[in-house]
């Protein structure tokens, strides 16, 4: 069974040189989509979309646990209450990951949840408060 997840990897700076990611792709046949990466005060963060078979996914996550990388699943992150969205587009300006785009034809603002890194900025910044965290 193929699954799709979005995860945050938290790791210490020393691990940053390890070919963590290559290994996930090569040895566990996982398809990765990098959404965001940063390194601050010796702590690295990487937000990745992952696609693969559920077996490979579990093995890959097992590997990350073994090498001391903390994994946070944010797949069920943020959703939009479409009824309350006015389509203004203010979110295009404040979303750090470019998850909102303008559909030039309809002038509507599209929420591309696959690009969302669940930072939560939009939850308080959306003018009509239509962005929510899933629990």
């Amino acid at each position: 069974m193929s699954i799709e997840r979005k995860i945050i990897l938290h790791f210490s700076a020393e691990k940053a040189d390890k070919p963590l990611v290559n290994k996930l792709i090569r040895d566990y046949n996982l398809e990765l989509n990098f959404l965001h990466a940063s390194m601050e005060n010796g702590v690295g963060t990487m937000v990745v979309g992952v696609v693969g078979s559920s077996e490979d996914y579990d093995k890959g996550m097992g590997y990350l646990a073994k090498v001391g990388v903390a994994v946070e699943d944010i797949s069920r992150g943020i959703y939009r209450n479409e009824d309350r969205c006015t389509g203004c587009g203010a979110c295009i300006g404040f979303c750090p990951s470019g998850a909102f785009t303008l559909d030039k034809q309809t002038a509507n603002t599209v929420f591309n949840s696959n690009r969302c890194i669940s930072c939560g900025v939009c939850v308080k910044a959306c003018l009509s408060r239509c962005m929510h965290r899933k629990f």
Partner: protein
Amino acid sequence: MCKTIAEINAKIKEGKAVVMTAEEIIPYTKEHGLKNTAKTVDVVTTGTFGPMCSSGAYINTGQPKPKIKFGGGTITLNGVQAYAGFAAVDLMIGAGALPLDDPRNRRHPGDFDYGGGHVIEDLVSGKDIALVSHAYGTDCYPRKELQALINIKDLNQAVLCNFRNGYQNYNVAVNKSGETIYTYMGILKAYLANANYCSAGALSPLLNDPYYKTIGIGTRIFLGGGQGYIVSAGTQHNPEAPRTENGVPTSGAGTLAVTGDLKNMKSRYLVGTSIIGYGTTLSVGIGIPIPILDEEILQYTLVEDKDIYAPVIDYSEDYPLNTGKVLGNVSYADLRSGKINLNGRFIPTAALSSLSRAREIADELRRSIQNASFTLTEMLEPLPQAGSGYSVHGLKERPLEEDF
């Protein structure tokens, strides 16, 4: 003049009026020419939807037994402070009003989850609202306290009453400083990292009638999903703002004061709005029909985003300190493209007003004119015009010591 409003209304009643939105009229005129189009087309509809802070509502609740006088006491609706400075059971609520215990910006930026704009939205959508009033009691109005649920369907009157809406053009906001700022123009990131604007551009009512030739006092309009009227020029109405050759102001200019029966409105077009670090407001939908009386009036409705310029203003310093400095001018075509070029630097843009909903409003107004549920009105008086000397100015601050 090729037609009168009375003639257009006669056509509307027969279901024969030709109505187009301010977007549709542009290609149509290019194809058929100015002269023919001015003859065939009767009405052009405009629309705008965005946060409009000087919006409010007044309501009359009806008297409970025994009677109460809100006036001079205090009153809250869903915890939000309303204004009790009138007669017995009249009250007013403004879009920016907050609950007394809202932390506001004590921890900056404040959330402003719920305020007057949200109360108005909830009221319109038919939800019960909790009213709490404390009064001082008189011989004729003995009651000192009232706690009750109210609902729009039971109120004697509920009237939207907005004294500055429909701004004719507006600033584009940026932030030159080194820190993110939270403004009524949204979140502005440091070092000019983004630019926010707020206008329906070429669909915007007053940009399609820049000299207020057909839009005036008494004009019937689409307001919040129902029908309303223009009661006067809005506060800070400034017809003397600089204009380009086609009459389009290059900065904020005309404004409208509007009113209408809340009972006929829809919450889709009156949306309670929270602006982080700034406060609450109400996003209001307004649509205004422009009767095509002659070629000149038609010509004005052909304005396009590329012809409308807005000033780029720094909201970290120049706006709050009122320096009057403009960093540059950009067109709405640029703003809508997703980025502007400010002195050689590309800045991504975002809107606080919704173009999709402005289009929906212009469309809806077109349909209601076509099916004769909306007819046009003659204005009773024009708005103050360019050249009339009517203008807007700052406050000349006189210290209290002088008078006391």
